[in-house]
């Protein structure tokens, strides 16, 4: 039985290796350490999110894993293949949809897909038939003969993802798949990503939307300044930040500063302000402390339009971990 153990059989090892395994990846651009020693383990079949603000190093990390950029230090395997030693094998096992639509705008939707299908080795009629299947599955049949430059943002994104599915990849890299999309198109793309994961594709996505990571990913790695500062399930990340979060909405926005001052002094934790509306969130710890803080607000004549105790949102987790709020868009999402 031991003869079949993966350690003795390199082929079996490649078959059961995790989808992604990275150790100490580093990429520097001049003085800037864009990725500064990141470890990553993504099991097969999982949706894994890399969450971080602009410039955190998310895209650079993904480009290294997709063999588009060589690491300066560290190592990684994707579907069991080394990204530096065996880039061709890695490329045969992955697909990547970049942040900016990687399509030929002058060509029609169908021509883009036929082009890629031919590059994968489909010939003549087979290439066309694969392109048509993809167009149908992504609701683009009607737009098949239109040039991509006339597509809407959502249609482009769908075509872009379709272009990554000519061959069902082992790992699909999605760099900020919903950036710049309207809420409907975003939900649409989310549905697509879930559908792909259900069919067994491992998905590594980067996002600056906390809501997106929360909604889609089984595990989340939070990245800032090229380093991984936390990793876990959305629930674990929230639990690690602390459970007793007090959320209050102030009736008179003019008194927001005053209210924040009281909460901060009372509860001894930094207060996070929502970007819109007079909302404040702060870690409270015990319910008693929260009660006392609320009592002092009322005693100072500050009317509350709403208050609640609960789990922190990923926004608050992110704030606690990085010391900066998540992107403005994510606040809107969190309200849905």
């Amino acid at each position, binding site marked *: 039985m031991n003869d079949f153990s993966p350690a003795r059989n390199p082929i079996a090892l490649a078959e059961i290796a995790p989808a992604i395994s990275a150790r100490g990846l580093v990429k520097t651009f001049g003085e800037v350490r864009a990725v500064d020693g990141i470890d990553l383990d993504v099991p097969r079949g999982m949706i894994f999110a890399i969450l971080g603000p602009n410039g955190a190093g998310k895209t650079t990390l993904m480009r290294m894993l997709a063999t588009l950029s060589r690491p300066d230090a560290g190592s990684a395997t994707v579907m069991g293949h080394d990204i530096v030693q065996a880039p061709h094998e890695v490329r045969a096992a992955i697909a990547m949809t970049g942040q900016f639509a990687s399509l030929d705008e002058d060509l029609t939707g169908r021509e883009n897909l036929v082009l*890629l299908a031919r590059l994968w080795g489909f010939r003549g009629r087979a290439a066309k038939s694969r392109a048509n299947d993809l167009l149908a599955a992504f609701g683009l049949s009607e737009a098949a003969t239109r040039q991509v430059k006339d597509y809407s943002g959502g249609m482009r994104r769908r075509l872009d993802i379709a272009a990554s599915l000519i061959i*069902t990849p082992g790992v699909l890299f999605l760099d900020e798949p919903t950036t710049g999309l309207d809420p409907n198109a975003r939900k*649409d793309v989310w549905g697509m990503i879930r559908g792909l994961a259900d069919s067994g594709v491992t998905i590594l996505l980067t996002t600056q939307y906390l809501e997106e990571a929360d909604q889609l990913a089984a595990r989340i790695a939070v990245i800032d300044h090229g380093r991984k500062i936390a990793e876990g399930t959305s629930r674990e990340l929230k639990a690690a930040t602390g459970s007793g979060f007090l959320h209050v909405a102030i009736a008179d926005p003019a008194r927001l500063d005053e209210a924040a001052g009281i909460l901060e002094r009372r509860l001894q934790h930094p207060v996070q302000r929502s970007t819109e509306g007079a909302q404040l969130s702060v870690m409270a710890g015990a319910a008693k402390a929260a009660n006392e803080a609320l009592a002092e607000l009322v005693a100072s004549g500050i009317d509350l339009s709403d208050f609640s105790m609960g789990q922190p949102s990923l926004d608050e987790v992110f704030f606690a971990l990085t010391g900066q709020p998540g992107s403005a868009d994510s606040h809107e999402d969190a309200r849905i």
Partner: protein
Amino acid sequence: MSDATSLGRLPKVARPASPSALSNALVFGWRAVLKFKHVPEQLFDLVMTPIMFTLLFTFVFGGALAGSPAEYLQFFLPGILVQTVVFNAVYSGMGLSTDLGKGLFDRFRSLPIWSLSPFAGLMVGDILRHLIAASIILTIGLILGYRPEAGFFGVLAAFALLIAIGFGVGWIFIVLGLLIRTPMTVMTIGFTFIFPLVFASNIMVDPATMPDWLRAFVDVNPVSLMTTALRGLMGGGATLGQVALALIAPVALTAILAPTTLWLYLRR
């Protein structure tokens, strides 16, 4: 949403056998052909300048420069073909710079294909563009009265030389396209170098009347060497030596810049 996404409708397919490098390159060549279909105006850009040059120099300056417009056209037409091919190369550099800026090449690079095939495809597109543009210019020349004394095979040999020139010069702009992010800058830098080479040559006039210092340059200018060989091939009387001199620059450019292209592309 007119028709909704449903991945359930996507059939599973078996992975086809890995295609050959040649097949990859031809697919990129096909992409270049599709561009002609969808962006025919690029061809208009390519041929309008040389057509205007031909008409302007032949009818406005031709009589003064060579005694009569007809005589001048006979001298000028092979030169304008060289100019057309050299200028056209600038546009393909711009196209590459545009592609790279849009992330399209990231997708190509993440595919298991021969690394250089996108460039081989660009070259196929360039060669087609050169052939189409040169044919249009030649046709207009024939209508205006130009006659290639060397006949059909002379013209064929001349076109083969033009392709070699376009291939060699093309590398300059592929390298510029890889190095420079903005297509407009590629064009500006391209023309900054190309203009002196094209105008300080024997394309428009016989260098006999130029000052010595300029003539010294014009005589060794690769564009002059190309033009001399092309005149010889089309007009008859080309020597092997002339053709060899014309090929020095394209061969040297390819030998130096093709490996540079690969290196730049892979380290991006």
